[in-house]
C-alpha cells in the first residue's frame, strides 16, 4: 500500500465490491459446495444425500480405474512438460542467436498460443484419421497400424503430440524473454572467458535461465493437468470408453455424465489439494528468482 494513500473509505469499498461479490458467488460458494458434497453420497433418484464421511475418497483410492487414470495423468504430464520445455528451449536458444529473420521466426513459433485446445485436438483427429490421416500413413510406412480411439497407447500419443504442439509457444516466449534479459555484457564476458559455445551455454546461460525454467515447470504441469481438457475431449470424440483420460476429464465425466456428485466432488477436492501444493511450490520458487538481481 502506498504511504500516501487516500483516506476515503466508502469509495474503495465500492471499488472492491464487484470483485468480492463475484468471487464470493462464483468461487467460494462452489468451492464450499464441492468440499461439502465430497462427504456425501447422492441418491441416484434424487431423493437427497447421506453423509458418508471419507467413504467417497476411500472408494476412489481403492478403485483400479481411478488409479489407472491417475497414473496416466502423471505420465501424460511428465511427457508433455518434458517435450514442450525441451523443444521450446532449443528453439528459443536458436531464435536468440540468429541475426537474420529473428522477428519472423518469433512470429511463426508463437502464434499457436492463440489456438484453442479443442482445435488442437481436432487437428490431431484429422492427422490420425484411420483411412487417410497423414500421420497414420506415416506410421503405415513403418508397418505400424495406428488406431487412434481404439488403441490405448496410440490415443495417448496423439494427445501428447497435440498438447506439446499447443504448449511449445508459451514456453518459447518465456524462454526467449529470459534469454534476452541476461545482460549482454555477461554474455560477452563469457565469450572472452570460454571459447566453447556449449560450455558457455551450460556454465552461464542455463543457470541464469533456471528460474524461468522452474517457473515454466509449474505452469506446464498445471497446463497438462487442466488446460488439456479440450484436447482430451476432442481426441476421444466425446466417448471416453476405454480411452486414456486425465483426472480432470474424469471429474467431468463422472459429474456430468455419470451424475455421481459425491465421487466427482471428492475427485475435485483431491485435485484442489494438488493444485494448492503446486502453487505454493511455485511461489516459493518465485522468491528464488529474485536472488540473482
Amino acid at each position, binding site marked *: 500500500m502506498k504511504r500516501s494513500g487516500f483516506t476515503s473509505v466508502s469509495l*474503495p469499498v465500492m471499488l472492491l465490491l464487484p470483485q468480492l461479490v463475484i*468471487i464470493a458467488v*462464483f*468461487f467460494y460458494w462452489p468451492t464450499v459446495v464441492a468440499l461439502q458434497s465430497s462427504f456425501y453420497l447422492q441418491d441416484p433418484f434424487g431423493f437427497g444425500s447421506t453423509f458418508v464421511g471419507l467413504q467417497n475418497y476411500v472408494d476412489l483410492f481403492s478403485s483400479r480405474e481411478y488409479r489407472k487414470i491417475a497414473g496416466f495423468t502423471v505420465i501424460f504430464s511428465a511427457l508433455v512438460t518434458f517435450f514442450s520445455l525441451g523443444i521450446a528451449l532449443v528453439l528459443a536458444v536458436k531464435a536468440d542467436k540468429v541475426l537474420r529473420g529473428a522477428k519472423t521466426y518469433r512470429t*511463426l513459433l508463437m502464434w499457436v498460443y492463440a489456438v484453442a485446445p479443442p482445435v488442437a485436438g481436432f487437428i490431431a483427429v*484429422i492427422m490420425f484419421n484411420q483411412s*487417410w490421416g497423414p500421420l497414420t500413413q506415416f506410421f503405415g510406412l513403418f508397418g505400424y497400424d495406428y488406431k487412434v480411439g481404439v488403441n490405448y497407447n496410440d490415443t495417448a500419443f496423439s494427445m501428447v503430440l497435440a498438447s506439446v504442439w499447443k504448449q511449445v509457444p508459451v514456453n518459447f516466449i518465456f524462454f526467449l524473454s529470459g534469454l534476452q534479459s541476461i545482460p549482454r555484457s555477461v554474455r560477452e564476458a563469457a565469450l572472452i572467458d570460454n571459447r566453447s559455445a556449449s560450455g558457455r551455454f551450460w556454465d552461464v546461460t542455463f543457470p541464469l535461465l533456471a528460474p524461468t525454467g522452474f517457473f515454466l515447470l509449474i505452469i506446464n504441469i498445471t497446463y497438462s493437468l487442466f488446460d488439456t481438457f479440450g484436447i482430451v*475431449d476432442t481426441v476421444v470424440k*466425446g466417448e471416453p470408453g476405454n480411452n486414456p483420460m486425465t483426472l480432470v476429464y474424469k471429474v467431468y465425466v463422472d459429474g456430468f455424465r455419470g451424475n455421481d456428485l459425491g465421487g*466427482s466432488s471428492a475427485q475435485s477436492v483431491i485435485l484442489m489439494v494438488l493444485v494448492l501444493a503446486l502453487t505454493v511450490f511455485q511461489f516459493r520458487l518465485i522468491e528464488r528468482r529474485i536472488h540473482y538481481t
Partner: protein
Amino acid sequence: MRKPKISTVVDHAVLIAGSLFMILPLLMLLQMTTIPDTELIRTGPSLTIGDQFDDNFNKAMFEASGFSGENTGLSMLKNSFILGIGFALGKIVIGMLAAYAIVYFRLRFATFAFWLIFTTLLLPLEVRILPSYEVVQWLGMLNTYQGLIIPLIASATATFFFRQFFRSVPEELVEAARIDGAGPVKFFIDILVPLSQTMIAAMFIIMFVYGWNQYLWPTIITTDEDMYTLVRGIKQIVQVLEGAVVPEFGRSNVLALVAVIPPVLVVVFFQSWFVKGLTESDK
C-alpha cells in the same frame, strides 16, 4: 566478409523445422477446405489446391450445423466475439478497480480483501466445475451471456497484474496530484488510467484470447445452439463428423479456421504488447 558458418546454417535449419512443425497443421486444415469432401475421404489432405473454398465457407458461415437450425457459423462467430470482448473488458475493469482500491487507499481490511482475492488464484475452474454449474443454474443464468462471462471473471489474474503495476508507479505522482487538488476519482481517471494504457492493452489481448478459447465452461453452460461459440462448436463438429457417411470436412475445417484466425491475428499484430503482458503477468 566471412562465409556463413556451419553453426549458423544449423541454427536456421532448426528454426525452420520448428516453424514448419507449428504451421503445417494449419496449412493442412486450409488445404482441406478447398477440395470436395468426396475426394477428401479417398485421398486425405494433399498438396493440391481446389476451388471449393467459397462453397465451404458459405456453408460453414450461413448454414446451420446443428439440430435446431440456430447455430450458423456467423452466429457462433458473434457469440465468440461477445464472450472474448466481454470477458476481457469485465476482467480489466473489475481488476483495475479492485487493484486501485487495495493499493491506493488506507483500508483496515485491505490485507484481508487481498488474501480473499489471492486465494482465487489457487483453484482453477475445472476443480469446482460441477458446483459452479449448479450455482449458475440456481441463479437462472444458464444459456445467457452473463452466465457465460461472469463466472469466468471470478479469478484474480487481472487484479494481481494491475496491483503489481500500480505498486511500481512512483509515490510522488500521488503526492503531486493531491497538492494539485485531485481527489481519488480524478487521480484515477486523469493520471493512473492513461499511465496504464500499455498494460491495459496487454491485458486485453491476453484476456480476449483466453475468453475466446474457453471450451469447458461454454460446453456445460450453453445447451441452446444459438448461444454456441465457435470453440464450443468444435465439440459439436467432431460429433457430427463421426456420424456422417461423407463427413463434411471442408465445412468443419472452415469453422475450425474461423475459430482460430481472430485470436491469432490479435496475437500476431499486437505481438509486443502481448509478449509484454504475458511475461509480466507472472506473479
